[in-house]
C-alpha cells in the first residue's frame, strides 16, 4: 500500500493549510447550529441552508464582482430560509426533526433552482488571502495560521463573539435558559419565542455564509450537490464539541484535516483508494460519538435539556 512516503515540508504545510480552510467551512455552520441548539431548537436543515447560501452567494459574488457581497448574500439567504423552520418548529410547534429535514429538501431544491444557469461559470477563488503583517513571517506557523482568507479570521472572531454573548451577556443567559428550562426563562421575563426565532436565524446566517465561502473561496464555482453532506458533519460537530464554541472549533479543525487529506494522498506517495478515504470523516463521526458517550456514561448530558421540545406558555 505504501510505496514511498514523501513528506516534504511544503506538502505537510499544504495539508495543514487546506485543513484550516475546510475547518473554516465546517466551523461556520457548526457554530451557527450551536447557537440554535443552545436555545432549544434542533435544526437539521443545515445542509439545505448551506447549499442555498452556496448558490445565492456565488451568484451575487459573480454579478457584483465582490466576494464580500457574496458572503453577505449567502448569510442573508440562509437566515431567510431558516425563518421557515422557525415559523414551523418554534411558532407552530411542529416536530423539529421533520421540519428541519424538510428545510434541507427546500434548501437543496432552491439551490439547484436558483443556480441552474451558473453551473458552467467556473472561475478561480474570488477571495485573496490576507497575510497578517509580522506574524506571517514566522516559519511554519506563519504559513499555516496567518495566511488565510478573511473569512477564516472572521470565523475565529465569530467563535469568540458567540462564546462571549452566550456566556457573558444577559441575552446569552436568556438564550441558554430557553434551551434548558423554557418556562423558567419565560418567568424571568425573557420571550422564549423571540429568543428561539433569533437563534435559529443566526444559525441560518452562519450556515448560509459557510456555503457562500465554499463557492466563492474553496471551490470557486457552483455545481449541484456541492455541499456533499458537509452540513450534516456540522450538525454532528455540535455534539462532538459538547455545545461549546471552543470545542466545536477543535472538532472542525480535526474534521477539516480529514477532508483535506483525501485530495492530498497522492502528494504523500500513499496509494490508497481516495473513495474509501472519503468515507473516513463520516465513519470518524460515528466512532467519535460512540467514544464520547462511553466516556460520558455516568455524567449528565451536555445537551440543552429542552432541545426538541416546543414551548407554549399556556401549556407549561
Amino acid at each position: 500500500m505504501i510505496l514511498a512516503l514523501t513528506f516534504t515540508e511544503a506538502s505537510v504545510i499544504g495539508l495543514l493549510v487546506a485543513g484550516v480552510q475546510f475547518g473554516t467551512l465546517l466551523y461556520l455552520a457548526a457554530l451557527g447550529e450551536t447557537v440554535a441548539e443552545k436555545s432549544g431548537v434542533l435544526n437539521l436543515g443545515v445542509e439545505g441552508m448551506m447549499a442555498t447560501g452556496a448558490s445565492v452567494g456565488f451568484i451575487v459574488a459573480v454579478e457584483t464582482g465582490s466576494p464580500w457581497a457574496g458572503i453577505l448574500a449567502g448569510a442573508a439567504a440562509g437566515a431567510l430560509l431558516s425563518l421557515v423552520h422557525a415559523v414551523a418548529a418554534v411558532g407552530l410547534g411542529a416536530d423539529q426533526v421533520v421540519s428541519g429535514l424538510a428545510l434541507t429538501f427546500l434548501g437543496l431544491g432552491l439551490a439547484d433552482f436558483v443556480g441552474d444557469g451558473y453551473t458552467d461559470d467556473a472561475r478561480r477563488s474570488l477571495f485573496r488571502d490576507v497575510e497578517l503583517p509580522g506574524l506571517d513571517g514566522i516559519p511554519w506557523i506563519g504559513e499555516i495560521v496567518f495566511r488565510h482568507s478573511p473569512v477564516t479570521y472572521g470565523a475565529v472572531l465569530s467563535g469568540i463573539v458567540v462564546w462571549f454573548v452566550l456566556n457573558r451577556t444577559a441575552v446569552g443567559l436568556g438564550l441558554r435558559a430557553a434551551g434548558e428550562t423554557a418556562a423558567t426563562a419565560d418567568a424571568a421575563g425573557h420571550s422564549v419565542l423571540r429568543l428561539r426565532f433569533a437563534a435559529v436565524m443566526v444559525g441560518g446566517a452562519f450556515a448560509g455564509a459557510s456555503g457562500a465561502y465554499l463557492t466563492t473561496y474553496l471551490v470557486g464555482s457552483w455545481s449541484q450537490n456541492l455541499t456533499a453532506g458537509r452540513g450534516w458533519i456540522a450538525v454532528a460537530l455540535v455534539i462532538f464539541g459538547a455545545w461549546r464554541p471552543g470545542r466545536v472549533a477543535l472538532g472542525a479543525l480535526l474534521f477539516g484535516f480529514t477532508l483535506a487529506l483525501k485530495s492530498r494522498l497522492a502528494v504523500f506517495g500513499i496509494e490508497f483508494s481516495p473513495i474509501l478515504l472519503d468515507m473516513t470523516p463520516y465513519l470518524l463521526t460515528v466512532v467519535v460519538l460512540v467514544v464520547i458517550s462511553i466516556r460520558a456514561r455516568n455524567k449528565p448530558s451536555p445537551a440543552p435539556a429542552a432541545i426538541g421540545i416546543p414551548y407554549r406558555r399556556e401549556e407549561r
Partner: protein
Amino acid sequence: MKRLVLTRREIPTRGGQPVAFLFGLAFALLVGAILMQVSGDPAIDVYQRMWERSLGSTDTWSVTFNRAVPLALAGLAVSIAATMGLWNIGAEGQILFGATAATLVGRLFPDWPGPVLITAMLIAAVIGGALWALGPGLAKAELGVSEIITTLMLTEVAIRLITYLEQGPWKDPEGFGFPNVTARPPQAELGDLWDRTHIGVLLALAVIGAFAWFINRSVWGYELRIAGSSRQTAAYAGISMRRKVLGVLLLSGAVAGFAGGIELTGTAVRLNAQISNGYGFSGIIVAALALMRPSAIPVVALAFGAVQVGGQSIQTSLGVSPAVSTILQALILFGAIGAAVFSNYRVVAVDRQVSVA
C-alpha cells in the same frame, strides 16, 4: 386591544390530517407557481406537464406506481422507528446496502432460476438493510448515541462503498472502461402485474399490511406501543427498552433494505449509488404526512411518486429545473404543518392585558 392566541383543542378535529395534506398540496402548488413565474418559467404548463406525465394518463401510471413503491417502503421504515420515538434518517443508506447485498447474491449465483434468485436477492436485501442499521441500533440501545446522526453518516458511507465497488472489485469487465457494476442476472427481474407495473406494488402493500397487523394485534406490537408511549409504564411491565430500541431499528433497516432489493429487481438493471434516489429522505416526509400511520402511507407515497415522476419530465420538455419537484415536496409538508395547527388548536382572541404576563 385584542390579540390572537392558539389554545389546544381537547380533541383534534376529525379528518384534520387529510384536509391538512390537501391544503399542503395547494400551498405547495401556489408557492411553486409564484417561484416559477418570478424566474420566468411557465408554471401552468409545468403543472399540466407534470400531471400528464404522472397520473393524468394511463400510459404513465406504471411509472408512478413503481415510484410509489420505494417511497412507501421508506415511509414505513421511518414510521416503524417512530413507534419508539426514534428517527431513522438513514433509510437511504439502508436502501443502498440492501441493493448491494442483493447484487452480491446475484453475482454469486448467476445461474439460479429467476423466482429462486429473486427470492434469495430480496432476502439478502432485507438482511443487508438490517445490518446497515445494526451499528446505529446498538449504539442507541447500549449507549444512547443519537440515531439521527449515525444512520445519516452511514448513508454517506454506503454511497462511497458503492462508488468503490463500481470502480474496482465489481467493475463490469465489458463496460468499455465505464465505472459501472456488472448488470444483475437478466432472469432476476420482477414480473409485471399490468403494463410495466411490477409485482413490487403488491409486495409493498403486503409488507405495510403485515406491519399494521403486527403493531395492532401481536404481543410484541402491543409491548412496542406501550414502550413507545411511556417509558415508565414499560418499566413496570418489565419490557426491555434496550431490546425494543434495537429491534425497532433493525426492523426499520430491514424494510428499507427490502426497498433496495425491489428497486434492483424491479426498475433498475444494475447497482449504482443513485438507485436509492433520495427515497430514504422523501420517505421521512411521506411518513410525517401520514402521521406515521401505515394505512395512510400508500396514499401519500402515491402523491409523492406523482410529484417526482412529473418533475423529471419538465426538464427535457420545458427546460425547467427538476429541482421544482424537490421544492414542491418540502412545501407540501410545510403547508400541511401550517394547516394541522388548526385541527389541533383553536384561534382565540383575548384581551392584551390578560395575556401579557
